[in-house]
């Protein structure tokens, strides 16, 4: 081998070595993102809060004051009737307020037997999810869907009648499609969406 070849070989080796070292460095130390929380877990965490807040409102406020102590009623038109907002409204107002604060998640209250028909399931996951949680007590439904060109992780949780006031009101409501709800029944579902 003459000098020229040796010099070329050394240069090539140097370049190759530097490239390899850079690649290895990037792989090991470059932009290490912190490990995120799985979307399913996030949805579960959010649902735990939503569910608890509303259960407390339903049992300690509405059920106690309307059904037990009978001092005030809960009514959809609570401003006009000087009454308490319905638990479903309390839930919805929360969802609307969240929507003004963040796009990181959205949630809604739906049912296969809705009082207001606009709260019936419309997407495939909503329909399948509501049916699943109604038929499989204690289980949640998770999936992915694309809406308006965006991908979402969607979770559906059962919404159960936690207090007598749930079933008495819904069974007797003029617009209810079902009149045979019992305490502990699944009456609908909470749908939480996280954009992916």
């Amino acid at each position, binding site marked *: 081998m003459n000098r020229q070849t040796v010099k070329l070989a050394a240069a090539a080796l140097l370049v190759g070595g530097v490239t390899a070292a850079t690649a290895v460095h990037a792989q090991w130390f470059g932009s290490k993102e912190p490990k995120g929380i799985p979307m399913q877990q996030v949805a579960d965490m959010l649902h735990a809060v939503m569910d608890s807040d509303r259960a407390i409102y339903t049992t300690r406020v509405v059920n106690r004051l309307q059904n037990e102590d009978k001092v005030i009623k809960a009514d*959809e*038109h609570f*401003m*006009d009737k000087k009454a308490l907002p319905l638990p479903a409204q309390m839930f919805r107002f929360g*969802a*609307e307020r969240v*929507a*003004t604060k963040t796009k990181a998640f*959205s949630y*809604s209250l739906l049912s296969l037997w809705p009082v207001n*028909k*606009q709260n019936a399931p*419309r*997407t495939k996951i*909503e329909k399948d999810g509501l049916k699943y949680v109604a038929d499989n007590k204690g289980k949640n439904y998770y999936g992915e869907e694309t*809406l*308006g*060109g*965006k991908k*979402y992780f969607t979770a559906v949780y059962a919404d159960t009648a936690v207090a007598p006031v749930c079933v008495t009101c819904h069974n*007797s409501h*003029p*617009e*209810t499609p079902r*009149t045979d709800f019992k305490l502990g029944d699944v009456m609908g579902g909470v*749908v939480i*969406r996280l*954009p992916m």
Partner: protein
Amino acid sequence: MLWVLWITVSAAGGLYVLGSIVYGGNRSLLLIGKTTSGHHQIELACDACHTTVFGGAEVLQDACVNCHGVELKAANDAHPLSKFTDPRNADRTAVLDARHCVTCHQEHRPKITRAMGVTLPHDYCFHCHADIAEDRPSHKGLAFSTCASAGCHNFHDNRALYNDFLLQHAGEPDHLERQRMTLATFLRSREDSIKVPRVLVAADADAPAAHRGDAKIAADWAGDAHARAGINCSGCHTTKAEPERWIAAPGIDVCKGCHSDEARTFVEGKHGMRLREGMMASHDGPLGIFRAAKLPPMTPAQARLPMKTDQAHTELGCNTCHSAHRYDPKTARVERCTGCHDDTHTKAYLTSAHHGLFEKEAAGLAPKGTGVSCATCHMPPIETRRPDGRKAIFVTHNQNDNLRPNEKMVRSVCGTCHGLQFTLDALADRKLIDKNFTGLSGVHIESIAWAQRRARERSKRRQ
């Protein structure tokens, strides 16, 4: 070399037009189409809506909400933004983007603008409520262009039209017997809380000799509410910040120091919208070519409604309806209105039954609060809550708040004296409105009957 001159002149002209767009000046040539009756008064304050030179629906949305947000919230908007931001409605907003006001209410499109500034074909409800007949058999066969008919539904304000309200007020007589707190009663209940050291008389007037003017002025003031409340000349003609400077003709900025509710609502309506904060005809521009200028107050000559010609150039402010030193509310309630307004409804008022009641009350032949003036219907007393939660009643000066669509008037005005069926029928009859309610309605609204029928059918099914 003429072309050099031509280029220079064109460039200068172009720059001036650009400057006009950004800063102001005479922009009437830039208007691209007749504005709606709701906005025509402020059409030269371009940046009231176009807050930035570039920007689409988002920029305009902020401007819409800035002026109309409060009233929509008060009306318990049936289609608020929150209904459409949920991703599950993405397919619906793709067809009709109800998240933006301008989707349905486009300005500068006179050829396609219908009632209430709507620029969509009337059957837009179809997009989301196509299957309504399944849930409401009574709606089978009804055309979607009739959803927003009088007495049925309103896109935003259903306070007097929702199902429970119809049922609650079903069967009411045409003329109600019940009492309702009038402004007079409320004021009497608050009188004790107003501590006045001493009621002022003409001799107490503290205007400097140079500005005293006619003796009649002091006499007018002394017999009026301001003197009784201890407000002297300096109270309106000077400010606390500059007690030496005499203001010859105090404007709304002075009045609002005490009458904040009235001043606030005045600039929300069509009498005062030009005086609203931020309504600038132009702003300060470079090289002093453009100067900041507010919109001038409205005058009857510029109105689209028929107005009396002798008042053509009267500038609208607080003192237009309330004379400067004798704030006689009685004159303000009818005489001042008919002094400018010259349309069929106004002219018909003077021979109407409502006016008959007004004259009876004025003559002392009927109890206080039973007379019906222009103000009774279009500037009624309304309840409000103070920041500390206390209830207060004041006369709203936003005449538009009780005008169109007239469903707005059902609860705050008509419903104080009349039953719901009678009210809905009357407000749905355009001919009757033109005759200012002389005679009975030729229209019968079925909404209450339908609500009752449905309630009966549903309760039968539940049994």
